[in-house]
């Protein structure tokens, strides 16, 4: 390719600190060459995918740049340039799926989401029928994550307080270790546990409550860890000042430490809620799903957005898949709103 455009950077007689470098214009030229060769390949060979186009063009650019750089600048700098290109490509490679996922969800979901879709259930609507909506699933998801937060937050907060304020020695280390174990617990295992414990051993019917219990297990380690971090950030001076005034230990924790750490704790809780709102596997095993609206999480099966997406996506009809995209858009908006709110809380309360 364009190796011949190399110039000698050293001024005659001057002190050469930089060495011979490729001119800036060489890189767009190599890039254009790489794309051109790829286009030629496309015409000659039966390649169809856009993913391949990007990969081949990227590889060709890397080869061209390395060859040019070795010829002009030497192998050390050529390696450096090669790695730089690879690192930029790696970042690009991460952004592509994000953009692709968001683009398909938004473009395909927006065609389906409207007021009718948000306010109707799937009752009396077969898989092949158009129409139907996600109202029942939306209610289920909101009730389940509310219940799960209600169970998980106080419990996790107590565990975090124990670990930061009281815990020392073996028990505390063991608890801390098992919080990590719980962090790595696959979500489907949480579902299987509630299935084994609540539905099979206690012989209860699957309800939204059972789903909320499974989500609770998934929320606990996330909330404990973030609350722990936030409690650790509370300056010791505050605690000592409170003790010096004769305030007892537990009142210090409740009245001084927790209020100071509260914004951070709220952020952590919201991120945890956002995480469990998208969980499907535990709900599949615990709430069973229904096509009708069920406001009561304590009796009868409920639906949930992720479960709705899963069941609609598994069907061959295009109308069902369209419904899945519509629900996916709603779910992603819900999760992103929770994330944004969490970051907003963190930002608004940070300055002090």
């Amino acid at each position: 390719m364009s190796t011949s455009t190399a110039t000698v950077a050293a001024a005659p007689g001057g002190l050469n600190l930089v060495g011979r470098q490729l001119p800036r214009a060489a890189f767009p030229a190599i890039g254009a060459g790489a794309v051109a060769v790829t286009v030629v390949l496309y015409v000659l060979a039966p390649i169809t995918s856009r993913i391949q186009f990007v990969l081949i063009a990227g590889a060709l650019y890397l080869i061209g740049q390395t060859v040019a750089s070795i010829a002009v600048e030497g192998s050390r700098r050529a390696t450096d340039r090669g790695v730089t290109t690879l690192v930029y490509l790696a970042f690009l490679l991460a952004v592509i799926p994000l953009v692709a996922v968001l683009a398909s969800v938004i473009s395909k979901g927006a065609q389906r989401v409207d007021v009718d879709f948000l306010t109707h259930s799937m009752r009396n609507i077969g898989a092949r029928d158009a129409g139907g909506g996600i109202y029942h699933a939306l209610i289920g998801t909101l009730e389940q994550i509310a219940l799960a937060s209600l169970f998980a937050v106080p419990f996790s907060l107590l565990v975090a307080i124990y670990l930061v304020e009281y815990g020392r020695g073996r028990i505390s280390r063991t608890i801390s270790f098992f919080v990590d174990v719980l962090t790595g617990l696959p979500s489907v295992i949480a579902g299987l546990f509630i299935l084994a414990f609540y539905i099979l051993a206690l012989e209860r019917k699957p309800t939204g409550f059972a789903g909320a219990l499974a989500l609770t297990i998934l929320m606990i380690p996330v909330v404990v860890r973030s609350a722990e971090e936030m409690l650790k950030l509370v300056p010791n001076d505050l605690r000592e000042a409170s003790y010096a005034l004769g305030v007892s230990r537990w009142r210090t924790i409740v009245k001084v430490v927790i209020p100071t750490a509260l914004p951070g704790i709220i952020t952590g809780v919201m991120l945890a809620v956002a995480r469990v709102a998208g969980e499907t596997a535990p709900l599949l095993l615990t709430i069973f799903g229904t096509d009708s609206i069920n406001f009561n999480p304590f009796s009868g099966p409920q639906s949930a957005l992720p479960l709705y997406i899963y069941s609609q996506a598994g069907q061959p009809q295009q109308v069902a898949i369209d419904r899945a995209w519509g629900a996916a858009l709603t779910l992603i908006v819900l999760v992103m709103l929770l994330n944004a709110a969490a970051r907003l809380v963190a930002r608004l309360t940070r300055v002090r």
Partner: protein
Amino acid sequence: MSSEPDGPRKGSSRNDTTVAAAKSASSSDGARVKPADALFKNLTRSAGLGLLALIAAIAAFLVLEATDALSANTGNFLTTTEWFPNGSPPVFGVAALLFGTLLTAVIAMVIAVPVAVGIALFITVYAPRRLATPLAFVVDLLAAVPSVIFGLWGLIVLVPRMEGVQKFLTDYFGWIPLFATDNGVVGRSIFVASVVLAIMILPIVAALSREVFLQVPTAHREAALALGATRWEMIRTAVLPYGRPGVISASMLGLGRAMGETIAVALVLPASFDISWQVLSPAGNTIAANVANGFAEANDVGRGALIASGLVLFVVTMIVNMIARAIIARRREFSGAAA
């Protein structure tokens, strides 16, 4: 409030001083431990112990509900590849499922880790400082997308597009046993499932690697550059050796996450129960995906069988996670003084 603790920055010892102060304060005016104080302490401690009980209960109830099915099983649970727990007599084994679980997770890790390390290097070393935080946020955004949406996208959007890539791989690299295929290429395969998993574990591995790369002492990096190293040589001699344990444990955590991922795999993989290294063939299954796919038609023995397979997954992911945590913990002791 400042974001840095003001006290001496030695982790746990910070609290010890508080405790000592509180103890001496209470002991000086006699043995006056307030009942409310003791109550609150016991409340928090019982919550902590409750967490331990929860883990024990998870293991206990999985074992309890699996035993009936395991005793009804006419095959060997660990070596049988078939999965007919609803038949009479029931025959099922976890061998093929476990194989698929490990294979998809390992391929996902092989794809994701180099890219994740690249992203972490990009954010910590290459990106302009002002852009680093927003770019890190973009990668974190990937972690916020629910797994069922990755599954939907993988099934509807990615599978048709990956068909060409897979045909290319099997046409030109089919002589490698891994890329050979007896049943042709239809899109849904272990390989595509691994690509979806790789995308899903990418943000976790990238975020953890980024954390360790940020901890590399600036003096190390500047020393390398001052000796005339290029940027890559600086990374190779200063950043990577320092960050290696962190990257390894991040990869292990990603591996654990990939093994437990359920819905995305259940949507992308066609369920089949055989052990095959042909990653491009339309076949394969994982423990977690099998739970999602097989649950609806499972009878009593079937549910027990799924719970038993879940127990295997629980043990395997726990081992992987423990190894990862052990590496991190050793690192923390090691770098505590340097930080």
